[in-house]
């Protein structure tokens, strides 16, 4: 993939804790084309979060390279370059929802007034209208996630990492959020890397899915999701979808390997 927006080449990460050596990632190759929606799926402990931390610039890989726009970029150089939404929404309880969402703009030096105006414009789209001046504690889990997403969107990065953003939501809210996210993405076309351990979610949302194995995390399968967009939610019951789902599930079962079923 020549024109990759963000790419990992032979990425490895080794942790040493109390004399124990743990390989979290080993030889991971992964590429996100411009404006692609790519998911990473795998069992817990497959190093998904480590991968994200490396892409976000929070951790430095032990081996391999990260290429942003084709240029090798690692560690602190990536800070502030890639949008990152961690699993918890991390909304600040002392800021109103509006002021939480403008955090990225504020850090980027945009005046508060202008940042708020830009944010307010997107409040309806993110289903947050009427909650501008409320505090995070007033919001439901789904709304908090949308606020965190808006914060990530407004920071204005071209590449966005989403770490199981809907993991904590009930399945109905979750389905609604998936459709909503696709809608947003189809309008605004960011490059998104999405982590999940839900096979349906990964297939429904993505152009491509990377399946990863348990520790040490490595890519065991790359699956192109050839379902045309825009996708209605009922594609998840269509024949091609189910076939891909079987392939992925089989792969994930294999990569659970010697370990007992979790």
């Amino acid at each position, binding site marked *: 993939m020549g024109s990759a927006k963000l790419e990992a080449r032979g990425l490895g990460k080794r942790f040493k804790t109390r004399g124990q050596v743990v390989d979290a990632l080993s030889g991971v190759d992964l590429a996100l084309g411009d404006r692609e929606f790519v998911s990473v799926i795998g069992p817990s402990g497959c190093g998904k979060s480590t991968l994200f931390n490396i892409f976000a*610039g929070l951790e430095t890989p032990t081996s391999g390279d990260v290429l942003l726009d084709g240029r090798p970029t690692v560690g602190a150089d990536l800070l*502030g370059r890639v949008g990152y939404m961690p699993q918890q929404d991390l909304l600040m*309880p*002392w800021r109103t929802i509006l002021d939480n969402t403008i955090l990225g703009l504020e850090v980027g030096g945009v005046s508060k007034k202008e940042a708020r105006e830009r944010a*307010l414009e997107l409040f309806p789209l993110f289903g947050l*209208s009427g909650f501008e*001046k409320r505090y995070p504690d007033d919001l439901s889990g789904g709304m908090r996630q949308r606020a965190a997403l808006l914060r990530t969107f407004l920071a204005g990065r071209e590449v966005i990492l989403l770490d199981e953003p809907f993991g904590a939501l009930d399945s109905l809210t979750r389905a609604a959020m998936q459709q909503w996210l696709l809608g947003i993405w189809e*309008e605004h076309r960011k490059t998104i890397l999405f982590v999940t351990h839900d096979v349906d979610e990964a297939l429904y949302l993505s152009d491509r899915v990377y399946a990863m194995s348990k520790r040490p995390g490595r890519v065991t399968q790359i699956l192109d999701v050839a379902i045309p967009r825009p996708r209605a939610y009922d594609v998840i019951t269509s024949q091609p979808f189910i076939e891909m789902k079987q392939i992925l599930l089989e792969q994930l079962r294999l990569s659970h390997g010697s370990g007992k079923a979790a």
Partner: protein
Amino acid sequence: MSGTEREIAVPVANGAATALATDDRRFTRRTLRRWVKTITPPLLFAVFVLFLWEVFVWVTAINALLLPAPTQIAISLAENAGLFARNAVITLGEILIGFALGAFVGIALGILLSYSRIFERSVYPWLVASQMVPIVAVAPILVVWFGFTLVPKVLVVALISFFPVVVNTVDGLQSVDRQMINLMRTLGASQVKIMRAVRIPWAMPFVFSGLKIAMALAVVGAVFGEWVGSNAGLGYLMLAFNNQLATTDLFAAVIVLSAMGIALFFLVGGVERLVIPWHHDKRQGGR
């Protein structure tokens, strides 16, 4: 809304923006009503206790040197209002200056302790140890050094009040969510920005807990400072009344002091509400 991602970056002043112009009014009638609802029960209870006390004194005809009736105390308060006011101002000054000093030193030390490991490891144990030295023993030394001036009282107050502030500031700064700091880093925030946007607000509720305890202790400290050596102030007055067996006036002095202490404590609480309203709202039960 349609179009490219550039859409996001286009600032448009729309109607929703004006909603911001109206600042929220925190002290509305609803707040007032809730406040009245909070203070009425304890107030009624106090009246009830005072009534029982009054009845007890009249029924048993107990010697006023042992236990004066509330009405007698009230009369003493009214008759000596000027005297109490003059001395209360002196004690109040000692408390406020000592508290300010203790709070400042406490917060500064707290920040230093949480930022320098060497400083923490070498100084923190001594800070704890310093609390084992009884102020009772230190106060007379301070009087020897500084005489019957304001200084020993202020120092006693500061010494007694800085400790809870240090401990809480350190706890607050050290408990900051690592993830929140990481999030700020991925947004490209500088250390200064992280300090201002995350660490300080995070630590604020802790600091205020420390300040409230400190204020309660400060009142005790000022009175104690006056007992050891002074010729004015509520503590001095109490000692004098005690020596004269003027029990009624002594009670009156205690009441003035208590009222002042309660007022000061609520003052800190009020400042807390202004500075970190979100925290207060949260404690009110999820609103």
